[in-house]
């Protein structure tokens, strides 16, 4: 390389050919999301993953980078999703004593709530004329996103739409939860937390923890239980 020949264009060609750019974009966007989330006192609308997705989507549009090209680099992050799913066994194991003490009400509520989630989401989408890709992705949107995306592949739904619907559902549940729970006169912290965890998985759980520790613990129990039971049952129902 001759002196002075190293112009912006050349750097750009080099960077966009390696996975580095996609990885930097992904991690930097997530870091910005985390900072914004902390600055807003963990407001559910400032969800760090939601912010990161918008930032990365905007960045690759501006850079004129095809999604397939971005994913080629970002797949190293994506790969860990399966490993992280396996790790969820640890928090579920920690929640087992809490679960055992109230197994019957928790399971009954989980089955009713999980059923309501699928029926209302897929039903409303179909009623309003949504296409099949959207209806399918609605089936698993209340499961925690890593599990939901795995199940989505098995039932012929798009993992991408599933992830987006799951994140949106989490945010909606965290924002609307208090109002809905007050409307149905739910007073016990463990019940309020559990309902939030069933409907709004990880994002609902974070919200529940910020209000009350017992609510948070039961939200996390609900998230784990819904993820596992949903992964076992939904593929049978949705075929």
């Amino acid at each position, binding site marked *: 390389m001759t002196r002075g020949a190293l112009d912006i264009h050349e750097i750009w060609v080099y960077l966009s050919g390696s996975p580095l750019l996609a990885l930097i974009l992904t*991690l930097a966007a*997530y870091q910005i999301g985390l900072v914004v989330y902390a600055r807003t006192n963990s407001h559910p609308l400032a969800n760090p*993953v939601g912010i*990161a997705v918008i930032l990365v989507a905007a960045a690759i549009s501006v850079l004129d980078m095809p*999604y397939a090209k971005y*994913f080629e680099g970002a797949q190293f*992050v994506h790969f860990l*999703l*399966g*490993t*992280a*799913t*396996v790790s969820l*066994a*640890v928090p*579920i*194991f*920690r929640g*087992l004593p809490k679960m055992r*003490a109230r197994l*019957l*009400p928790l399971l009954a*509520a989980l089955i*009713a*709530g*999980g059923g*309501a*989630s699928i029926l*209302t989401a897929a039903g409303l*989408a179909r*009623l*309003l*004329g949504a296409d099949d890709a*959207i209806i399918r992705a609605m089936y698993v949107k209340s499961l*925690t996103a*890593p*599990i939901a*995306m795995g*199940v989505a592949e*098995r039932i012929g739904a*798009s*993992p*991408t*739409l599933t*992830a*987006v619907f799951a994140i949106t559902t989490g945010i909606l*549940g965290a924002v*609307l*939860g208090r109002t809905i729970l007050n*409307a*149905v006169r*739910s007073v*016990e912290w463990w*019940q*309020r937390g559990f*309902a*939030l965890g069933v*409907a*709004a998985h990880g994002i609902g759980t974070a919200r529940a923890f910020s209000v009350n520790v017992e609510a948070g613990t039961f939200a996390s129990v609900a998230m784990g239980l819904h993820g*596992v039971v949903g992964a076992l049952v939904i593929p049978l129902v949705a075929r």
Partner: protein
Amino acid sequence: MIAGLVEILLFQGAGEVISRFVVPLIPGPVIGLLLLLGYLVLRGSVPRHVEVVASGLTQHLGLLFIPAAVGVVMYWPNLRANALAVAVALVGSAIATIAVTAVVQKLVSGRHPK
């Protein structure tokens, strides 16, 4: 840390193999999760090295689904065309799920006091 990662990857691998050859309907990582859970229950505690890796991964779970979710750019026209249906379905379903779960819990635990 490496020992914990190896252990978790082994459970994931076992899950993938079982998913592929025995129960293709259930995703491999979910089977891996159940196997690891079974192992933890038998053992009665979480090994320190598994704990370290698992807490790191689950703490930043959100980061891991960004690459797939960015694919939303490909679905943009589809989502725009179905915007009303998607919005109503997501909001309606979130409300229904929370309400139904809370009400059923109240009904059932009313008959089975703690």
